[in-house]
């Protein structure tokens, strides 16, 4: 696998609390998962995905974790078309166009 060059902006993942060492008050589904941390920064040495690496964050802090995502992008958007919303829109518009009658 090709190494990702030093200085690349990457995301790392770090296990903060392992399964079984979670806070006592968390429900069982959460108890059965580790507490994970993801943070982005600049890669300090050429590395491959899956390796333990060190990054320097935008504030210059050094954090170690597993390299999970080189050049991470934001993947959120406006979603797929939601047909139900067109029906909502139509019902509001139709109501505004209909006769005045109080309490109708």
């Amino acid at each position, binding site marked *: 696998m090709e190494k990702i060059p030093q200085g690349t902006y990457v995301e790392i993942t770090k296990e903060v609390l392992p399964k079984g060492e979670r806070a006592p008050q968390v429900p069982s589904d*959460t108890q059965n998962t580790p507490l994970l*941390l993801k943070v982005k920064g600049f890669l300090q040495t050429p590395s491959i995905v899956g390796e333990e690496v060190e990054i320097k964050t935008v504030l210059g802090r050094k954090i170690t974790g597993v390299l999970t995502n080189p050049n991470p992008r934001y993947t959120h958007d406006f979603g797929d078309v939601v047909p*139900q919303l067109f029906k909502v829109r139509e019902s509001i518009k139709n109501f*505004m166009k209909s006769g005045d009658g109080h309490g109708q």
Partner: protein
Amino acid sequence: MDNSYQGVMARKNEIMKKAIGIDYSQFQLTPLAFDYEKMMAYGGYTIEKIREIQKEQGVGNTPLYELKNITKLVRKLSPKGKGARIFLKDEGANPSGSFKARRAAISVYHAKKNGYKGVVAATSGNYGAAVASQAAMQNLDCIIIQEAFDSKGVYQPEIMEKGRACEAYGSEVLQLSVGPELFYVFLRTLEETGYFNASLYTPFGIAGIETLGIELAEQIMERTGRKPDKVVVTHAGGGNLTGTARGLKKAGCEETEIIGASIDLEGLHMASDGDFNRKSFTTGHTGFGVPFATWPDRADVPKNAARPLRYMDRYVTVTQGEAFYVTEMLAILEGLERGPAGNTSLAAAIPLAMEMDEDQIIVVQETEYTGAGKHLNAQLSFAIKNGIDVYLGEPRESVPGKSIVLPEHPRQLSVKEYSLDRLRATYLKNIKQNFDINSFTEIDWQFLQAELNTSLDNIKKLLSGKE
């Protein structure tokens, strides 16, 4: 140093003291009671001083819109002579896009004045973007800690958007999987950096919102010549309601009814990995609204300055479907595209306006920005992908985590009352678990009357469990 969960939690008080710099013991009167007004005056942040700081940071002075078309819609649904005028305070116009800029402006100012090099805030919401934006303006470093994704690595789209905004303002963003141990990471970050805890709940943070209440009162009086009859506030952690109500009182609106409104998410567990991505609202919901009203000191400071039961006259809930519905309505009838969570109070205001006379005034006190991820289309589409049944019908039939029901007709918008005595009884149950009520003095009972905004008789009745 012991960095295990228990080890760090054991150092909590010591870490917090350094990170906030307030000795809260100076306000304490008895093990339970403390001098709330003395705490609110901490740091000399008078309302004039706060207005000056906010003006300097470009915060506040947001527009007030009269929602004329929605008022028309309400009057078509109301009996003759009913249907109040609805106004909306466009807090989305703040830098960072929400009223949270008001709190952040003062927190960051305070941090800078006291020599801190940076600020840390634990928040998945608009407050993160607000602190990040203010830190950029005031030249401080900023770290935002978010609960952001579930164990499958799936991000709530709204939280991903807020993380993006924080990064755009130059902050470091620590994103965590689901769980209250975010607080543990928060404490460790404060300890490692020596930065200021820009908590949502410091006295000056809450005092920063008082300007919202004052501006709102001034704008309504200027536009209409009368005081607002009702103000509806989206209620989550309690700061928005507390600050706004205090501001309204300072502006002479003692009679204005303060109504808290939350999205009903009953049945979903806020610390559950499985429930995390089954909700479409990450704030403004009962999952924060109820626990924070009934036990304010669960916050990340020793004494929470947000104490909503002192000021709330009525508490109502609406459904996720209704909040989405009015978000669409605000866009197509008023030409205002704003984020769904801030529209919780609009969803409540529409049915509330129907109960009121035509010459009366109801104010929706807040909006927030919208965009990729924090948009009704993004949220509904994400819900459908997560197996939530989204359909048109009777909104009250919806089950949080299972279905979202969009109204078929505006007449289906309604509010569900949440009894204040029910909240007070839960508050008192928490008090009984944490304090010895048999040793309470006159000072404690007076404190409880102020905390719960009710009579001693009612408190005694609620404590005896008879309603």
